[in-house]
């Protein structure tokens, strides 16, 4: 649709279990991120070449992008060593990201990504 120079993908991103406090206290965000990550991480063999170099946008890139563009404070409570802080569970379209390749999952337009911490009250 938006065909020319900088292809982008649109995602629904949700935060829960207190993580929303770091993101303007909003649980639900719709974000548009570049379809390709600027700096390639691992394999450079492009599956989808348009838009220049880099690797297709994956969850690792989304985490970096959220940290740089959406996070309001206390980055260390969200990101650690290029991934989420241990204790944050990531869900891809209602599936545990571990079943989907974790940070290497390649994002598709319309994907819904949820970041949650455990709740503890009772």
């Amino acid at each position, binding site marked *: 649709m938006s065909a020319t120079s900088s292809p982008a993908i649109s995602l629904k991103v949700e935060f*829960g279990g207190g*993580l929303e406090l770091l993101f303007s206290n909003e649980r639900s965000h719709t974000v548009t991120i570049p379809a390709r990550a600027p700096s390639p991480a691992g394999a450079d063999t492009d599956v989808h070449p348009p838009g220049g170099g880099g690797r297709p946008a994956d969850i690792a890139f989304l985490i970096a992008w959220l940290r740089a563009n959406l996070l309001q404070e206390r980055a260390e*409570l969200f990101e650690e060593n290029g991934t989420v802080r*241990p204790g944050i569970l990531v869900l891809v379209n*209602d599936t*545990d990201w571990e079943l989907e390749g974790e940070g290497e999952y390649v994002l598709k337009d319309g994907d819904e990504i949820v970041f949650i911490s455990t*709740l503890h009250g*009772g």
Partner: protein
Amino acid sequence: MALVCQASTNCMRNKISWAEVTIKTGQLKLQQASVAVVGAGGLGCPALQYLAAAGVGRIGIIDHDVVEISNLQRQVLHTEARVGMHKVLSAAKAIEQINSRIRVEPVTSALTASNAQTLLADYDIILDCTDNLPTRYLLSDTAVQLNRPLVSGAAQQFDGQLCIYNLGPGQGPCFRCLFPKPPAPEMAGSCEELGILGAVTGVIGTLQAMEAIKLITGLHDGRPTLLMYSALSALPFRNIKLRARRPTCPSCGTEDEKVGKIGETDYVAFCGGQRPDW
């Protein structure tokens, strides 16, 4: 007693026979089952209520707190007249009034790393109805050691989570597999600070009883899932498909692949130093 199914003729009898058979054998299994409920607060009260109503034969209740007036806004087994009584004794009294045939085993000690295995070894299923993270990690480790499913509920403000950890010995993840580290104390807040809407604990606690009943009667499909509840969301319930256990998990991992140890863990220190007010 859990399900009433009487003979009758005005419907398609042959079609509901499956449900009937399931129900009848289910009642026997429930009578023979034992469940330990850790925490007789917001989650424990509705869970206990529906386990007792379903006719679970033996129910252990572990909690060292006493009933306070402020508990009554969500801890529905306790009464104004029982303020000051141990919660487990108040709950035992309520259960006895509902179903006097249940064998209730109240324990007024706090659950600790040194007594957890002893207190829980004698039950088929463990329910985590606690309100703090150190006990949640302790319960998960204990359930792994004892090879028991842990039906875990949690609630904060308008949100709840429900998960069976250590489901189907060695298959589903434990609490540590999913959440290897507790959330930062700055974000966790306390129940007192954040408030919990009573009906949220009601929904999650009742669903914990339901999951226990499904496990006991063989109606659970064995797939590990996490149910997320958000009372104010346009999509209030989400059902998440979970990973299998993590071979490197220090608690439930495969013996020679485990990374890290938890044997000597001080659960409170692990969850942020000084015991916080949750």
